């Protein structure tokens, strides 16, 4: 009669299985939604709206044929970002309104300083949502580009830019200590380039 070969010891199989389980538990990230955050203006109209100079407003219009009009000039989507950066970073103000950190052309007919500069985004009722989002994306990118530049200039020892710092700040895994040190830096950069992006109500067509 043949001798039975000894059975493979399966006692450690469970351990291996749990090891794998824990490995996957740690490494998989559940997919989270992401998108562009915006804040809508409150509904009640201001009784006395502040007077804003024409040169401090950067108008972007997307019409019903998805064409983009920036400051009354037809423009391709790929140029919107650099045009917005140029406008925000202009720093044309003098005296009290001068901008010490701007690197723009200091054109008197463009924005005084980033704190005054407002981007106004208008759309038609027939504009495609995806084009609208693309334009929003480019305008946010312009702000982020400038904020990144200032963050690196101001805090070169951090070895990251504004967007990375902001991501680190909003990450729940970051320790409270790191968050506390990041917050004043982020706030400082945000006041240098405040995101003033107004979404006007669409034109009645």
């Amino acid at each position: 009669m043949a001798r039975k070969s000894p059975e493979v010891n399966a006692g450690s199989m469970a351990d291996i299985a749990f090891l794998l389980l824990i490995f996957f538990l740690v490494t998989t990230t559940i997919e989270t939604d992401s998108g562009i955050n915006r804040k809508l203006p409150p509904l009640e109209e201001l009784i006395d709206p502040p007077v804003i100079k024409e040169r401090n407003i950067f108008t972007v219009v997307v019409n019903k044929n998805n064409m983009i009009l920036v400051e009354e000039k037809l423009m391709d989507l790929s140029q919107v970002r650099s045009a917005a950066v140029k406008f925000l970073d202009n720093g044309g103000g003098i005296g009290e309104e001068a901008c010490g950190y701007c690197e723009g052309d200091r054109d008197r007919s463009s924005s005084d300083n980033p704190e005054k500069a407002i981007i106004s985004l208008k759309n038609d009722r027939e504009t495609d949502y995806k084009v609208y989002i693309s334009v929003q994306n480019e305008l946010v990118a312009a702000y982020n580009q400038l904020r990144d530049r200032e963050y690196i200039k101001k805090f070169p020892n951090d070895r990251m830019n504004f967007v990375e710092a902001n991501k680190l700040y909003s990450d729940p895994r970051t320790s409270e200590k790191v968050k506390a040190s990041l917050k004043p830096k982020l706030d400082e950069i945000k006041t240098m380039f405040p995101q003033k992006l107004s979404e006007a109500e669409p034109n009645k067509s």
Partner: protein
Amino acid sequence: MSKFKKKKGGELPAISTASLPDIVFMLLFFFMVATVMRDNTLMVTNKLPAADQVQKLDKKDRVIYIYAGKPSSRYQSKYGDQPKIQLNDKFSVVSDVGAYVLAERATKREELQNVLTTALKVDGETNMGLISDIKQELRKVNALKINYTTRIGDYTQNK
């Protein structure tokens, strides 16, 4: 020679199945963890536009979702092919958005009611008119924090 003969005669030992439950449980746990629970069945096409300057929208308990887009193909015979709003498993009209947001807000914990975000999951092919109407409704109920939910990608994908 006799050694070989002996082996040949022996019957194959059965493979131990003692670890099978472990493997199955492991797979089960893995899928439990990795799957995203979708609490609404989508009745609209939802190809989100791409953007790369995005912020994460974590903490699901603070988010109210509004879907919009063309009805999916199996609903098109009944509801037509014009973009519609979907709130909680049913098609709705713009005037329902305010009531929906207020009802959703009431179900959240009190300390979260002021920090809620409204996520707009809108199909890329939708006209802005519908979105503007939703935004106006949101302003009426003072739900001012919104998030245009997007895919992560370059804007050139939106062509």
